[in-house]
């Protein structure tokens, strides 16, 4: 049995405001865990064999790890910026590889076809050239200078705009996107996908947002993001092969897939292969 480096990473396992003393039984990479809170309301995570797991309470969610994380939980400086509204979107279970959930979130080319008239629309389907790098100093995947025409980029957007995006992968099952903030030019809205791997082909997804939007009611913000993610869900559950292939075979990536290529390369370099297929596909 080879070591699984993903054991030592941080994973989301619940919304902080929903924790209860009785706890919720769930799974993390095949291991049963219980996520509860203590008298002070702080998260307590217990593994199936009774051992206490490390916890962090950050970005609206409880985080834990089955191993011994060498790195502190990644930083999202915008989360502490005054004036942002923090949105716990709620958990959605998806029968797909946790890595595929992240990869789909990094893709722009599907917008006109899956999120039609919202995040994209025909005939504006071209993904213009953008930049991708693995930032060695922070060990994260970054895509920058991404531009896409969107009919309704956010709940706060009126009419179509060309939206700027940046994508960031700070942990194997976490993706953070920064996008044009319609009411506050110069700032970025932050939309994240926190993925809890239950098994190699099953995950729970906890989207979370930190937005500048004083107008839209909270429920509308939640519904907008749930609508977008649930449009993706039916696609994700039908992707083949079920596990994410890390080596190219039959697939022919295009220029629009640069972020996905870098993500897969980064996963492979670290041995982050839980949910990955090591045979070329």
């Amino acid at each position, binding site marked *: 049995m080879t070591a699984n480096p993903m054991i030592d990473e941080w994973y989301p396992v619940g919304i902080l405001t929903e924790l209860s003393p009785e706890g919720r039984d769930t799974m993390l990479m095949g291991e049963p865990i219980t996520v509860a809170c203590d008298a002070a309301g702080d998260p307590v995570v217990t593994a199936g064999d009774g051992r206490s797991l490390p916890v962090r309470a950050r970005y609206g969610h409880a985080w834990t790890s089955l191993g011994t994380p060498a790195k502190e939980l990644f930083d999202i400086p915008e989360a502490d910026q005054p004036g942002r509204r923090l949105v716990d979107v*709620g958990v959605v279970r998806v029968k797909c590889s946790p890595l595929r959930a992240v990869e789909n979130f990094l893709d722009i080319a599907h917008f006109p076809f899956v999120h*039609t008239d919202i995040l994209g629309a025909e005939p504006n389907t071209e993904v213009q050239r953008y930049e991708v790098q693995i930032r060695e100093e922070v060990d994260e995947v970054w895509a920058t200078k991404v531009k896409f025409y969107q009919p309704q980029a956010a709940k706060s957007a009126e009419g179509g705009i060309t939206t700027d995006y940046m994508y960031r992968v700070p942990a194997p099952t976490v993706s953070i996107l920064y996008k044009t903030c319609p009411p506050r030019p110069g700032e970025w809205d932050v939309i994240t996908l926190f993925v809890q791997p239950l098994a190699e082909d099953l995950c729970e997804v906890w989207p979370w947002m930190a937005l500048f939007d004083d107008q839209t009611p909270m*429920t509308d913000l*939640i519904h907008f993001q749930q609508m977008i993610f*649930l449009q993706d*869900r039916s696609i994700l559950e039908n992707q083949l092969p079920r596990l994410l292939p890390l080596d190219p075979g039959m697939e022919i990536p295009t220029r629009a897939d640069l972020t996905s290529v870098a993500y897969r390369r980064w996963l492979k370099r670290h041995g982050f292969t839980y949910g990955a297929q090591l045979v070329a596909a």
Partner: protein
Amino acid sequence: MILYDYVLSPDCYKVRLLAALAGVKITLRPVDFHPGGEHKTAPFLAMNPSGTIPIFEDDGVILTESSAILTYLAAKAGPAWLGDDTPEMRGRVAQWLAFSQRLSASIGKARVHDMLNKPADIEACRKAGTQCLREIEAALVDQRLAGHDFLAGDRPTIADLACFPHSMLAPDGGISVDPYPAIRLWTRRVRALPGFIEMPGIHRLHDLKPEPGPIPERV
């Protein structure tokens, strides 16, 4: 007319879909069903003691069953959607409206179990859902042999709108629709109706859109 609405609810979507197809404007009031559970709070229980959505309000009338809402909205804004005023068609429409409750109780429950972690006897839900799909498939085949494209006759009615969403969303709850060609053709016909709107999990027919570029002279 106000619809207390949840974007992921097939029973709310039915009402939005009829309003779009009939060309009538309704006011949507989003309800934080998940994760907030707002439909179980006191103001909502006062309107609907059963603690479910949709809830529909118009001129002092409050309706909480999707089939009743479809009937009311059609009668008010698009009577053609009720079907012909014949005993046969009235009966068939009522039959499918009642049948749609079984879809909500089986496929609908399997779906929120698999998607939003709500409790359910998942195997029982999937079994009952599969049975429902088989009954729709058989009925659609019979209809086709009689020369009819829709559940209650030769044109779409609220019977189709009541049964269409769960029939398409069954895979969300781990129930395959692959074995049912008549259902797939029928859902395609519904999606091709002028004014059709989608919901997450029910995609529009992109192939019906005109090609974006000029038509080449020869291939």
